[in-house]
């Protein structure tokens, strides 16, 4: 079913790391390093858009496309494949990674300290994330999942600010602990009777799926082992405490990548592995996911209200918005009837839109901090007059974040609520409160930062330069584009999620 070697995904995944190697060995001089890094990021953006554009959305199309499949570890004890392939679920996420990778490189233009090393880590990070989104072999998936830690750790601890070393270490320990649970889960899946493979395509196909017979760890245990790994990454309450620290102290580009794509790895893992490989357990524990989701949404929103640091504010709002992903997945918990793809599609859409929206917010905040040297909201004010481009970008991102129709956030939130309401009506209404609160903290933040009386010290601030404005424009176009024409993404997501929904319907109505 998934055989052959297309090569496009291999190129997409490994182009950045090859670029990093060339950077390390050949390129000299800070200027050349920057230009070369942009070239590589641009190349990878083009490749990822090719994947997105060439993905066959037709009805009769194969579920998995662009297959790159060779044997990695032959059948000796551990039997693993090098298998890169995409279906509708990961295609948009690949495009998102390409997009944000480009933005991150552009946002790093002003970095003047250990420049070469910085871009090397950034490019390695991009390879790792691309790898996570395209590997369909559990071992390979885990390999990329772990690979992502090192560059992120270095980016925060060397180029960060504030308590950067503490934050980097916290990020590292949380994630490693989470992946330790995941690793036990992967091993147990591999050893289950009749499995003996890490192939995720086989494991998420109904006929060859894991059954409860003869397992060393019961299915529910496996479900939670994977869940903890992904929940830490997402992050959901109560595993979220690393995120505000990591975000606050990370350099802008690292924040963009962290919020934009790294958190999405958690959501993607939940959809791909928890929902895709353990449908019966997802059905059984949907209520728990919704509870955690609603708590995250409300807790995140309430704590966000109290923040005075711009980056911390966005970090907590991320926790709130990522809670919606769990609520969307909770739509699986309908008691009877037919599950529709709506809720899951909302969860997947939320991953994409939050990636672009939060990416844009962090880019804008990075510019504000660069000019004013403060992120403390009470010290700011009236910046819109001096930085109109940044202010408009921030406003659009903020409005998308609170779900204004016509912007991308509206689509995903609507889908989540539509889907989840059928399964859990009251919790969904509670989660809706989170959106009301979002309107509060976003608008309040905008008002205190960009409007009102400008302090004299900010009179000679300059607006975003061309290089700085480019990623802003890129993101704004994406946000408005998806808001106006959501089918561009929802159709693709649906083609990947529909097979999962079919399996789930079989489980629900058994």
């Amino acid at each position: 079913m998934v055989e052959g070697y297309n090569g496009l995904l291999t190129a997409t995944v490994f182009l950045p790391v090859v670029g990093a190697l060339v950077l390390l060995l050949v390129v000299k001089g800070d200027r050349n390093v920057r230009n070369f890094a942009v070239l590589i990021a641009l190349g990878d953006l083009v490749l990822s858009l090719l994947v997105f554009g060439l993905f066959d959305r037709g009805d009769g199309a194969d579920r998995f496309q662009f297959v790159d499949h060779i044997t990695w570890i032959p059948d000796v004890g551990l039997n693993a494949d090098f298998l890169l392939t995409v279906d509708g679920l990961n295609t948009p996420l690949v495009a998102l990674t390409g997009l944000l990778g480009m933005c991150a490189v552009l946002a790093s233009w002003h970095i003047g300290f250990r420049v070469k090393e910085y871009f090397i880590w950034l490019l390695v990070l991009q390879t790792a994330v691309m790898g996570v989104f395209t590997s369909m072999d559990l071992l390979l998936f885990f390999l990329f999942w772990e690979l992502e830690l090192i560059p992120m750790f270095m980016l925060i601890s060397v180029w960060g600010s504030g308590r950067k070393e503490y934050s980097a270490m916290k990020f590292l320990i949380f994630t490693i602990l989470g992946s330790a649970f995941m690793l036990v889960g992967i091993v147990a899946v591999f050893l289950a009777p009749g499995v003996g493979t890490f192939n995720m395509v086989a494991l998420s196909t109904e006929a060859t799926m894991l059954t409860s017979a003869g397992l060393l760890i019961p299915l529910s245990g496996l479900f939670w082992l994977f869940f903890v790994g992904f929940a830490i990454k997402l992050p959901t309450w109560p595993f979220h405490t690393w995120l505000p620290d990591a975000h606050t102290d990370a350099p802008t580009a690292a924040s963009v990548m962290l919020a934009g794509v790294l958190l999405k790895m958690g959501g993607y893992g939940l959809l791909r592995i928890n929902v895709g490989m353990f449908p019966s357990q997802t059905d059984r524990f949907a209520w728990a996911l919704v509870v955690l989701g609603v708590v995250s949404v409300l807790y995140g929103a309430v704590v966000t209200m109290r923040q005075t640091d711009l980056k911390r504010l966005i970090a907590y709002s991320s926790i709130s918005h990522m809670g919606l992903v769990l609520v969307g997945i909770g739509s699986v918990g309908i008691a009877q009837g037919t599950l529709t793809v709506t809720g899951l599609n909302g969860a997947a859409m939320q991953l994409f839109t939050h990636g672009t929206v939060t990416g844009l917010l962090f880019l804008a905040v990075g510019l504000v901090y660069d000019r004013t040297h403060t992120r403390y909201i009470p010290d700011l004010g009236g910046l819109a007059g001096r930085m109109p481009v940044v202010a408009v970008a921030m406003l659009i991102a903020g409005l998308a974040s609170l779900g204004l129709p016509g912007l991308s956030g509206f689509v995903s939130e609507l889908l989540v609520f539509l889907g989840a309401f059928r399964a859990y009506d009251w919790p969904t209404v509670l989660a809706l409160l989170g959106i009301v609160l979002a309107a509060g903290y976003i608008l309040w933040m905008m008002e205190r930062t960009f409007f009102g009386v400008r302090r004299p010290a900010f009179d000679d601030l300059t607006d975003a330069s061309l290089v700085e404005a480019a990623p802003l424009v890129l993101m704004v176009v994406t946000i408005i584009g998806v808001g106006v024409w959501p089918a561009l993404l929802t159709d693709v997501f649906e083609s990947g999620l529909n097979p999962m929904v079919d399996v789930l319907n079989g489980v629900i109505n058994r």
Partner: protein
Amino acid sequence: MSVHDFYVISPYLAMAGAAVLVILLDLVLPKKGLLPYFSFAVLAGPFIMTLIQFYDLGGAANLLRGADAFTTEDPSILLGAISVDRFALFFNFLIIGTVALVVLASTDYVRNMERFQGEYFALILFAATGMMLLAAATELITIYVSLELTTLPLAALTAFLLNRNSSEAGMKFLIISAISSALMLYGMALVFGFTGSTQLADISIAIGQATGDTPFGNYALFVGIVLMIAGFGFKLSAAPFQMWVPDVYEGGPTPVVAFLSVASKAAAFAVVLRVLFTGFFDVALDWGILIAGLAAASMIIGNLVAISQSNIRRLFGYSTISHAGYILVGVAAGVKSGDGIFKAPEFAAIGPDSVLFYLAAYAAANLTAFFAITIISSKISSDQISDYAGLSTRNPLLAGVLALSLLALVGVPPTGIFIAKLYIFTAAVDSGLIWLAILGVINSAVSAYYYVRIIRVMFTEPATSEVKISGSPAPWLALGLAGAAMVFMGIAPGFVMEAAQEAVRALAV
């Protein structure tokens, strides 16, 4: 002894001969600087003989006895003292490779001991002879003699710097080794007293016939086997027999410590596997629990104490204890309790497979780390982790390689130890030791803290000096080779994995 017997033991003879050659050459060679290269070159002898035997073996289980392994009535002239099989050859390759790299990495280091260079290299080669013999020995007395042949040169090497720390370390190593040897010898005597043989094959048969309700069948065997395991525990640097490790690691010459932590450990594991699986297999369920306990203790003690270390070599001392723990998980995973009424132990090859793979991966990663430390410490003459501050600006490549090897020791992909840990924990889960696998995984996560702390110091803290750090080509070559092996085993583990499985097949009775 026939000519064939000489052929069978030729790798060991060649290794011992190489050591003698080095000593002789030391007498006549005017330029001592050439000694390391000569010591490297003479390794070709044992390597070629091992290679020839490897191809000669073909499908046979054992060179000495042809296809039928472990038939005790065989009137072999070597009296069944050694078994040259794939298992032994796997370790020959591993040990010869390690020695070659250690010799290369020592070229700079030995400059400051002008007078004793010949002795230094000869002792390393003698120790290696003992290690290779250990992996092949199938008889208790041979095991004991090989062990002493390994230990005595290592004790001398540990004390080689002739300063206070080094002498203290050498003394400690010698005394602890003597105690552990005594324990082991007492255990061997008890086992011999009960089974009436020193041959592992005969012992296995005698134990199989013992019927008793006590653990290990009867009390003489119980005490005997436990004492032997305790004796081996010292050599493996497993907790609770670990107290000599940090001092020796702190005091000994860096390349010697690298050699000790890799080759000596590999040889000790080889003999443990051989004794436990071919000699004492019928009571495997009893020693399995013991080994699992040692594994858990080593992982926990090694990792927890390593957290508070400020000297990089002491830290590696505790790190090696924790790795002994991980590897012991694989040893414990070699036994499964059977399904029958009698719950006879079943051999689970994946356990020893993973042990062999782990040893190879650990060798590559640990050697990389130690070679980097050798180059660094010879320039900054300090082993304090805080003195590694800003290393990334003083030599980015060196800092990068050391960082990669530290990450490898955590078990981060794409390095060999990631696959090795996965393999070992898979084996543990497969053999029903889920608790041990979970403990191991949690310990790996904990270990990230102290390894990454070093990386953090190197990359984020400002340098205390602007002086660049550099080394001569030979240590760099050793570093590069070890590093390449470390990454190779992570990206394409199939080759070593198959070799390990072939080797373990010789263990299965």
